[in-house]
């Protein structure tokens, strides 16, 4: 396996590992209701 092939494999698997290590915390929607939007001010 030549160096360019090796580098291309390393590049790809670096991305795959980054995906697996990336945060998996769900982003839950947060709705902020301003008093003015519901006529309460």
């Amino acid at each position: 396996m030549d160096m360019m092939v090796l580098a291309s494999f390393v590049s790809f698997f670096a991305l795959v590992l980054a995906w697996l290590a990336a945060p998996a915390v769900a982003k839950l929607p947060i709705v902020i209701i301003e008093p003015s939007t519901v006529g309460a001010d």
Partner: protein
Amino acid sequence: MDTGDTAWVLASTALVMLMTPALGFFYGGLVQRKNALSTIMHSFFILALISVQWVLWGYSLAFAPGGGFIGGLDWIAFRGVGQEPNADYAATIPALSFAAFQMMFAIITPALITGAFAERKRFKAMVVFTLLWATFVYAPVAHWVWAVGGWLRTYGALDFAGGTVVHITAGIAALVAASMLGKRIGFGQGSLEPHNVTYTVLGAGLLWFGWFGFNAGSALGANGLAANALVVTNTAAAMGGLAWMTVAWIRHGHPSVLGLACGAVAGLVAITPASGYVDTPASIIIGLGAGVFCFFAVDILKQNVGVDDALDVFAVHGVGGIWGALATGLFATTTVNPAGANGLFYGNPEQLLKQAVAVAAVAGFTAVVTFIILKLVDVTIGLRVPEQEEVLGLDTTTHGEVAYQM
């Protein structure tokens, strides 16, 4: 080298490439509004992911010289795949062109499966599953059927453009995945209706367009066989759409737009393995069968079996693919393609047996390996999102985006 052949195969590669984003729209319209983006993302992400996987090792495992079961590693990272033709596969186009054309098939196949686990699968699980599945299911089956030395090719099974390699593998994998993931929250309660049939019809139209490259491009030349494949493809798509719509009209009382679109895709699936071996009248029968069989497969699977194959991947691609593979054994004729074989109706019943063996082998292998891969992913990452995320929708919870700002 033939410049006309090369131009056609390069153009066909682009046509087939478009099918995967088109599939994203086809599926994206069928899901709930809160999962539109995540569903489109599956197809678009796989387009990028498998583009690299195929270059690095997928193509080599599928087509490089090897045994009857799997190819070798001579062509990893496209080393040895150059501008000169490889006469084993396509004598008049660059080897790179053939490899790129095949890449688009490798991309759309795992993208098809995503319809089964839409609206509830973890994104990371989808990533790992797709990489493993493309390596351990798609590459071996492509080798069996299309590679020099592949055991099904040597045996004499016919698959012009991927009825077994693409559609049966995807359909069976979808059935296994849907069974293992379980039903979506709200399944059977009428709350999972398509949110945008317009997207689905747009996707179906683009799929139909791209399928000309899929099937006619598989002639690997700008020639009469490509013309035959294009005509039978269009005819079968039309008959599939008309047949599905008709049955749905009789059963449900409406000429459904969605039925026409799904039927056209079913017709396209069924003609795929046959498109280089059958004539135009046969394509009408194949399209008709696809529309009827796939329509009832959807009904049976959803109502009687209770498997939540969310976007009917098995019913359309599995059943349509099996019908197309067997129909090739019925209607194939060497007057269309002297390099093929005659089917049952042209005096060669043995071809039907060969097609049935190919269907059984590919379906069995796919089911077992898909099950093992999904189990591995389940114990390491987890297949399904938590219930709260499923209720809120994957667009927001997984991708932090929404499809529509209104």
